[in-house]
Every structure is written in C-alpha cells, then in structure tokens.
C-alpha cells in the first residue's frame, strides 16, 4: 500500500521527476517540493494522472523543516528525500563554504527534514519515509569523500530512524541507486552495466516501497561490487587511486 500524499523532496531532479510520475501512475496524490520553478512538472503530472498534484517551495538547507510540513496543510503518508549535491571534491577540499554546502545538502538537511517528517507523520497509517543515499557512503574514497561521508551519515541516520520507528509502524527505506544517468552525472563516463536510468530507479523504489523493503540497491550487481570494495584491507585501499 502507498499512503498519500507522497511528498517528493527535490522533485526537480531526474530521479524525483521519474518518482513523481511513477507514484501518480499508481494513483497516489503527489506533492512536488523543490527550490526552483516546478510548475511545468506539476502541470505535466496533472495532465498525465488526471489528479491534482501540488507544488511547494523547499530548500533542504533552510533550517525550518517543521514549518515546511506544517505548511503543507495535509499530513504526509509518504516522504521521499531526493535532494542531494555531488559537488566538486577538489573544491570541497579547498573551500570550507563548499564543503559545508555539500555536507548540509546530503546529511544535515536531509536528516533534519526526515526527523521533522517523522514528527509530522506520527501515527499515520501505512506511513513510509524513503531516503536516497548512495553507495559512495559505504567507504570513503579520495575522489568523493566529502559527498560520500555525508551520504554515510545519511545511511546511518536512516538505519537508526528505521529502528526507532519500527514499533510505531512507520516504515523507513534506504536506497542506494549506484550510478544513475542524470543531470548529476552528465558528462561522466559511467560503466553501462552498473548504470541505471531514472525510470528504472523510480520503478525499483516504488516496487520496494510496496514490498516494505528496508535497504535496496537498484541494480543487484552493486551488492557484490560493494562487498568487494568494503573487504579490501585499508593498507591496500589507501594506496589505490579511487
């Protein structure tokens, strides 16, 4: 069962758009939350679904998550945190403000928003919180450890929230998409067998949501890949260029 409304936080992303369409196609009432202009996507969803999707302004770093949920005017049934920022590792390493932004957008902001979501959803039937984390959070690598460590924090946060809310019946799901062909990765050379399309990610998330899964990888191939990466001894790992 999918509890409505489904609030998509970061709805202008390619994964967020695909999720919105997927949920609307299942008959869910969808609320799109994004910091930019999202009217074109709201209208698209309206024409596609015949429903009445809403659009609301959202900035994951604004520090006012309770006010955001109070302002929705309805109690969320499902909240999906999609917002994130890959940033640039070299810039993050040399510029404190950039590092702070990547940390705030991938860990602090999402965690605070999802805590507020759990408060707002207190007691809602069939409620579900979904966080999009990353395989980058499983082991810090020289090429993206600011982003990766923030995602590691998000993964730990989601695991704790799941544990804390299990008795209350609020389901929490962690998604590790692996590589996805989106704006975030445009121009990067990604290995096709490990790269998913946004539609594929959305479908995997919605299927897993219906089955109440706890932690998912989108492409099953990532499981063994990450098992190997986690198993490399640190003495060896630190010398690899990753």
């Amino acid at each position, binding site marked *: 069962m999918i509890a409505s409304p489904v609030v998509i936080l970061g709805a202008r992303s390619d994964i967020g758009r695909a999720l919105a369409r997927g949920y609307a196609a299942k008959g869910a009432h969808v609320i799109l939350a994004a910091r930019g202009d999202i009217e*074109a996507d709201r*209208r698209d969803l309206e*024409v596609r679904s015949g429903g009445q999707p809403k659009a609301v302004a959202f900035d994951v770093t604004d520090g006012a998550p309770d006010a955001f949920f109070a302002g929705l005017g309805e109690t969320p049934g499902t909240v999906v945190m999609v917002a994130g920022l890959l940033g640039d590792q070299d810039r993050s390493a040399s510029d404190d403000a950039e590092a702070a932004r990547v940390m705030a957008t991938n860990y602090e902001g999402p965690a605070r928003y999802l805590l507020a979501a759990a408060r707002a959803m207190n007691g809602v039937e069939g409620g579900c919180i979904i966080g999009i984390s990353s395989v980058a959070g499983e082991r810090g690598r020289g090429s993206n450890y600011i982003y990766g460590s923030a995602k590691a924090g998000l993964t730990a946060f989601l695991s704790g929230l799941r544990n804390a809310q299990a008795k209350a019946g609020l389901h929490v799901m962690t998604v590790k998409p692996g590589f996805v062909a989106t704006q975030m990765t445009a121009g990067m050379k990604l290995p096709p067998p490990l790269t998913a399309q946004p539609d594929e990610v959305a479908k995997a998330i919605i299927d897993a949501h219906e089955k109440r899964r706890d932690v998912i990888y989108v492409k099953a191939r990532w499981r063994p890949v990450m098992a190997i990466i986690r198993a490399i001894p640190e003495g060896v790992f630190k010398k690899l260029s990753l």
Partner: protein
Amino acid sequence: MTAITGWGRYPRIEAEVTRPASIEAAARGEGLPRGNGRSYGDASLAPRAVDMMGLDRLVSFDDQTGLIVCEAGLMLSDLIDLMLPRGWFVPVTPGTKLVTIGGMVASDVHGKNHHGAGTFGEHVAWLDLALGDGRVLRCSRDENADLFAATIGGMGLTGIILTVAFAMIPVETAMVRQRRLRAPTLVHAFAAFEESLDWTYSVAWIDCLASGKDLGRSAILLGEHALAQELPAGAEPFARPAKGKKRVPIDMPGFVLGRLSVTAFNKLYYAAQRPGDMLVPIDPYFWPLDAILEWNRIYGRGGFVQYQCVLPIEASAAGYQQILAAIAAEGDASFLAVLKRMGPQGLGMLSFPMEGYTLALDFPANARNLALLDRLDAITVDHGGRIYLAKDARASVATIAAGYPRLDEFRDVRRRYGLDARFSSLLSERLHL
C-alpha cells in the same frame, strides 16, 4: 565528447552533446536539436548537438477537441501508453514509436494513412521555435507562417522546436481490423491500392527477390481502428498484450539477413491466402520492429542505409518496374521492401511525401549496394521523384535539388532569420540545405 549515430549506425561522429532539462534551458541551447536518433542517416548528427529527450512534459490536453500540447522531447511511446487507455491515438504514426514528437515534426513523418490523413505536420496546430539567438517564436499557419512551413520537415535546420500542439484522434479500442490481400505482380499491387483508398491504413510488403513475371509480388495489408462492437464480448477494449522484448544480442553477419527477410515475407504472403479480416493488436500492427530491441544490429558492424523514394502517381508504374528490376538484378541481394500509396503534398517546404507511391528498403552499407543506390537515384530523378532526407546518408546534391523544388525558398527562410549560421548537420553540409 560522445559518439553518436543515426539508426543506420552509419555514419558515426564524436559530438559534444548537451541535455537541457527545461524549456528555458533548451531555448538557449546551441547546436543541432536531436531526438531519439531514429532517423537513419546523418540528419541528427553534428559536432554540437542538443539532446531534447529531457523535455518530455505534457502541457495540456483538451478531451473535447483532442488538442494536446507537449514538449518536443516527449517520446511517442510514452504518449501512446498514456493516451490510448483514455481512447486517444495520434493522427499519424511512423513505423516505430521510439521517436520524439519534435523528431516527428522535423521529419514531417508519414504513416500508413498518408493517402487520407497527410503527414504529421498537417495535424500540428502550432509550435514554439527557438531561433538560437534568444528569440522564441510561436509558429502556425497564421503566425510566422514562413518559419512554420520551413520547420515542418525542416530536419532541425530552422531552430529548436520546444513545444508542439496537435490534435489527437479518438479510437474505441487498441485493436486494428486488418485485411490481407495478395498481389502476384506490381501492377496488381497498384490496382489493389487504388481500390483500397477508402481504407484508413494500407501498406504492401514486396518481395524484391521476385523477378521476371513475378516482379513486384507483394502482400498488402489494409487496416481500420477496430470499433468496440467488433471485439469479442467481454474483451477489455484498451488491453495491450504484454510485449516480450527480444534483443539482438550481437552484430549479425549480413547473410543471415537475406534468409530472415525472405522467411518473413513468405509468412506474410502465404498467410494472405486465408480470406477475411482479423483483429490485430495495435503494437504489432503499427510498430512490429519495436518488439526487437536494437534490431539495427542485424546488419552487422558496417551499418546499413535505408533507401526511400517517392514517385509521382503517373510515373509510378514505369518507374517502379525499373527500380525493382535494378534491385532484383543484384543477384545476391535479397531484400524486403515496403510500398505505400501517398496522398497530396503538404505544406512543409522540404516535406517528403507527394501524391504517388513510396518505396522503402534497407541495404547493408557496402560499396556494391551504394553503387546500386546511385542507379536508383537516377531512375527516381528521371521520373520526377525524390528521396527521403530522414533516411538518407549518401545522396548527391543534384539528386536532392532535383527532388525538392522549394529548396531555395527553404534556404531563403534560413538566411532571413540567420538560421543558416546557427543550425547545421552533416546532412545539411553534405547536401547544401
């Protein structure tokens, strides 16, 4: 840099491809607009390309008139999945649904109903066009009519189509009532087409191996959207049987192809012995090849070219005798071709269809076949015909100039709006469009 090709996988080019996510970003796009790369040759190739596939939003739908407004990168397959269950279909569809609406306008595509419905462009109410210098103009028959006529069939050379408004048609089911006829010769095929002009859809598959007295031996398929009352009692009118997708796993050597197409033809032709009509699901009827992903790989690594020409009605009988004889004379060439009756020329300056008959067939891209195609071009030009830009990768400047009398008018529009300096493709460079 990314390697891009058309559907024929010949030629190939390294390009800088940008992918705008909003109309505003696309309006500032620099480079040749590109859809799903289903044109066969070099029409969608340029060193700088704007990938339109991220612009796939619906803007509005009027369920009284059927008028739909959508972004130009919307895939036809997506639109069909969405609208068919509500009882709406596109007025014109090409033989694949894996194309974008913008690509359908830019190639001014035709379907099996061209003799009655005209091209896709005839159903476009208006479109928004980005000229590449910051201007975005609404174009229609009444507004910027010169740009409109140049853009319908304009192969991406008049700017980036951002948004398209067109009328959909109501249907009662997702089935087609199909009638199969056999035509033992070309003359019989023409006669069958002329007698079937009141059918909405018609197409013929010709066996290009047949020669001599069998020249033009073909199976003709006619179709109408099935009415709800024609379905078996209790059938769900908009059900579409799940499509088992097959993928061509590897590049296949050329000789497999001959056997495949001959087998396919024989199936069609001899099945047409059975009299009467049958109901066929809409997907295999309109888009039979879409069930086989990456079927272009059956031609092997060298790629292939598709040849499509149209001859005026009065020259068709004589012209196609010559064309089919030239193809059949290529001993080892065993091809399946599609023949189709076309209605009058539409409003697009470079629109392909004209009243007459069109023939389309694939050839592996090798020297011998390319020489054959030059001979086919000569026959086409002699008979007052033209070849289809969306499928071309090799025709000469002279062949195109002879076939498209409004080419100067098209060039003039490009010059007037400064489009010739901002939009070009391998196709336009090769053919001086």
